[in-house]
């Protein structure tokens, strides 16, 4: 047992404690320097269980270092570094401390070797991150934050309930691969699923991420969901149901993303879609698939952060992220435009960009295990990604019709942060070997085969062609507040109306039940207030005699129970 190692998470917590007392300029330096330090520590950590702490008769494993934990730890440090660099201009102590605590908790969770430690960090990420939403300090952000917090804390509560049952069943709290079956594992699975934004549990994501501050969203996008991906990969690799969940996750956000006008929300939907790819990889569970998941998570954190940063920079300069109000910004924000295009190319998996080399691992794994339908769905989803993230984001922000806005170029620190992220996106795409070397399993995989490149290029080119044709023929008038790039009219018009009809009925029933329950609850509280309130019988100070009566009653009862019990 080694004691001379400080868990990486504690470095962040320490910094968070010191940060409020550090002068403003130094604080930004601290925020940027610390993730680098943490990254170095993670890089040089030996493998194994490095630190045990006794807690209540349990042995907590605070530092389990293996290749999977290491690569997530590294990319989280990198994301923290980029996010903090991007937020260099922020002078809000709350946000800065929250960002440190959040990153620290996420990294701590990755190295957690048991379910209790995981739970602590799991809740840590929830509590710390909500301040990034509240930091916007608007009424709407406050309510969004509360909703987000309820979901996230709920996920943690389900996790600890599952962990408690798991301990009772198996007598172990170790966080290892589990098989679904008992209530315990289902609860744990559900808790991971909520954080991973499984379909029907995903709404918190689109609700919360676009509501955070410009810099907060960048940081939010990196940790929570990827932590869930890590937890699933660690706990439920090879669970078949995940393949189908993942496939649905890749599909359904596309339709929302294409009709969404707020560009940050579009990115939130596409984040959901990208998570789907990773979840499919976990579900397949072979070495190749898990490598694909981990690699894709690595690449995804970087290009998603890059996209959020570029849209954030636009929001920062123009005050809006609505597609219908933007356009033509390439004139004055050329660098941001270039970075955004690099991010878009990466997420669309253009050859020579990071998405290509990582996504193809998952696609190949699904084909290799003979999941051809899944393979086809993933392929279709890739095309969808290209539509809404690859083309829509850069097109509507920087090109399209001229909005007349002439904002300044993004501030230098943002450009540097975006530049570094872009560098990684391209570097991973061009030369993936170092990334492959970090993966949990041996990789003998070549992304750049002729077939791969051609398939991908065909897909991309036809998508682009479709887009161009549709734009040229004027099927999508630019003044539409939400522009649907997908060819399917029914999803834009018919489905929403159908959903709306059903929703009205459901809402009516729901409201009925809810108001009935509220009324009942109000009555109960009123009753309780009547009896327990300051003027109620229960709380009144009775005369001394009353108490004497109670004493005799109690004495009598005790005697009776003792004698005849």
């Amino acid at each position, binding site marked *: 047992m080694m004691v001379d190692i400080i868990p990486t998470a504690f470095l962040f917590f320490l910094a968070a404690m010191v940060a409020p007392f550090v002068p403003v300029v130094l604080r930004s330096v601290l925020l940027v320097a610390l993730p680098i330090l943490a990254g170095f520590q993670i890089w040089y950590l030996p493998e194994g269980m490095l630190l045990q702490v006794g807690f209540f008769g349990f042995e907590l494993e605070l530092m389990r270092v293996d290749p999977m934990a290491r690569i997530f730890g590294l990319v989280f440090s990198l994301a923290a570094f980029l996010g903090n660099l991007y937020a260099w201009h922020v002078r809000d102590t709350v946000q800065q401390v929250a960002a440190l605590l959040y990153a620290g908790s996420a990294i701590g969770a990755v190295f957690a070797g048991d379910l209790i430690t995981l739970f602590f960090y799991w809740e840590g990420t929830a509590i710390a991150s909500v301040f990034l939403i509240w930091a916007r300090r608007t009424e709407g952000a406050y309510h969004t934050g509360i909703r987000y917090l309820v979901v996230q804390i709920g996920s943690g509560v389900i996790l600890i309930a599952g962990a408690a049952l798991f301990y009772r069943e198996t007598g172990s709290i170790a966080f290892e691969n589990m098989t679904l079956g008992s209530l315990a594992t289902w609860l744990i699975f559900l808790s991971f699923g909520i954080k991973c934004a499984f379909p029907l549990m995903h709404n918190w994501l689109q609700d919360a991420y676009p509501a955070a501050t410009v810099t907060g969203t960048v940081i939010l996008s990196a940790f929570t969901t990827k932590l869930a991906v890590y937890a699933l990969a660690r706990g439920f690799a090879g669970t078949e149901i995940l393949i189908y969940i993942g496939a649905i996750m890749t599909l359904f956000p596309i339709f929302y993303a294409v009709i969404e006008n707020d560009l940050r929300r579009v990115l939130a939907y596409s984040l959901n879609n990208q998570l789907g790819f990773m979840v499919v990889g976990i579900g397949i569970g072979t070495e190749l698939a898990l490598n694909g998941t981990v690699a894709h998570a690595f690449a995804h954190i970087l290009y998603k952060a890059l996209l959020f940063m570029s849209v954030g920079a636009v929001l920062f300069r123009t005050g809006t992220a609505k597609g219908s109000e933007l356009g033509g910004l390439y004139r004055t924000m050329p660098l941001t435009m270039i970075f955004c295009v690099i991010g878009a190319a990466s997420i669309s998996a253009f050859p020579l960009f990071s998405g290509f080399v990582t996504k193809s691992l998952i696609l190949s794994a699904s084909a290799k295990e003979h999941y051809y339908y899944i393979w086809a769905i993933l392929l279709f989803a890739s095309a969808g990604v290209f539509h809404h993230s690859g083309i829509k984001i850069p097109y509507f922000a920087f090109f399209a019709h001229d909005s007349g806005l002439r904002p300044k170029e993004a501030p230098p620190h943002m450009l540097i942060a975006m530049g570094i992220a872009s560098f990684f996106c391209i570097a991973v795409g061009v030369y993936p070997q170092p990334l492959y070397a970090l993966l949990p399993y041996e990789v003998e995989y070549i992304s750049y085969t002729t077939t791969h490149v051609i398939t991908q290029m065909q897909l991309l080119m036809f998508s682009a062609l479709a887009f161009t044709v549709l734009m040229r023929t004027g099927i999508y008038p630019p003044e539409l507040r939400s522009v649907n790039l997908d060819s399917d009219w029914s999803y834009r018009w018919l489905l929403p109306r159908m959903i709306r009809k059903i929703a009205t009925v459901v809402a009516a029933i729901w409201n009925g039940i809810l108001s009935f329950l509220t009324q009942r609850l109000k009555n109960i509280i009123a009753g309780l207030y009547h009896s327990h309130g300051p003027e109620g019988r229960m709380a009144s100070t009775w005369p*001394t005699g009353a108490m004497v009566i109670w004493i005799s009653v109690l004495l009598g009862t005790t005697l009776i129970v003792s004698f005849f019990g």
Partner: protein
Amino acid sequence: MATEHVHVARTLMDHLPVLVVLVPFLAAPLTVLLGSQRLAWPIAFVSSLVSFLISIKLLMQVIDGGVISYHIGGWAPPLGIEYRIDAANAFVLLLVSAIGTIVMPYTVQSIKSEISERHHTLFYTMYLLCFTGLLGVVATGDAFNVFVFLEISSLSTYVLVAMGAKADKRALTAAYDYLIMGTIGATFFVIGIGFLYAGTGTLNMADIAAHISTNGADRTIETAFAFIVVGMGLKVAIYPLHLWLPNAYTYAPSAVTSFLAATATKVAIYVLLRFMFSVFQPDFLFEINALRWIMIPLALVAMFAASLIAVFQSDLKRMLAYSSIAQIGYILLGIGLLSATGLSGAIVHLFNHGITKAALFMGVGALVLRSGSSFYARIEGMGKVMPWTSFAIVIAGLSLIGVPGTAGFISKWVLVQAALEQGWWPIALAVVASSLLAIIYVWRVIEVLYMAQPADPTRREAPLSMLIPLWIMALSTIWFGLDTDMTMSAARAAADGLLNGFSIGGTSVGH
């Protein structure tokens, strides 16, 4: 495992069991005799500090399950009076003396505003007497001696509560009510001891225990049990016998409330434990019945009813008083479960709740010092003008709820475990459900302190002499929430010691 050190005392170290009581006992008249207001505080502080240090030493000696038997004046029990220190009472001694010492610096500023000038010297005398009484109750191994010390502490408590009359005249009626109630309780207790003496012919607790375990229980002893439990139950503030508590805590000076809330009821619980588990053996049927049919239901009622009352209160100090009654419910629940885990949960909650409540009442005292009252309407927005005080209240409030990472969590966790161990999961659920009520009443305080605009933004933060003791307490709730080694092992040793009764050392006592 348990070894008995029969008293062959020659050095000062061997006299520690009596010195822990004797030092404050002698210091109390000294303050009056000297009659100097300037000297009263230093004398009181030094003597309580000495007691505190002795308690630490004593706990270290007995934590491995040892027992120290000290014979007063060299007279061997059962004729002579015996002081008997084992893990259970050493732990409570530590709690009492620690709180007594830490509250000391806090009293200086607090009583300046809350007690009239001419009573200041007397305050320290009474404080020391109360302190002595509580320590004596815990340290002694003689049943009648328990009663004597109980009266010493009770009588001085009535005076201390009445000293709140400068701020609010209702302190006088509160003290009067408490006097009547407390006397009835003490009378019941002494009647119980009388029955015990009639039934066994001895007053030494170990001797009584030995007598009961060899000869079995008869009606006299069963009656004694009922009287002792009910009499002490009043001091504990078991649910329907709690009526003296809200007023006494609300109208007593803040320093007194901080001290009493953390110690007085806890000492009474210790006596209850000592009698239930050591003197009467729990394997007797009548005791199991009493616990199962009286203790547990009353504990559950307390947990919910008192918490609900606390939810609707509009006075912070009164709210905390009711929450104390609810928290006592948890402790009684742990006792009622009649298992080693339940008992150690009860003992550790006794400690953890003691420090939590001390912190909270100190915080209230600081608020009262600056705002003049503890009504929610008067302390609105104090989070902005008194950030240190308010934040300490928040920390202790979290411990009151039982948030992980605070002391309150540890004890509730053990209690839940104990309930599950016996398969009584509805009780485990009840513990969790009543904690939800605690969330509500603590959240109301946070809302009052932070979400409103301060009525008077020119108020200042409390003085350091109050803040430091307050923060020592607040931080210790976090400390004991993270480092559970000391509290849990002591509670475990105490529980084992209590469940074993005097059966191990008992035979060697009469030699």
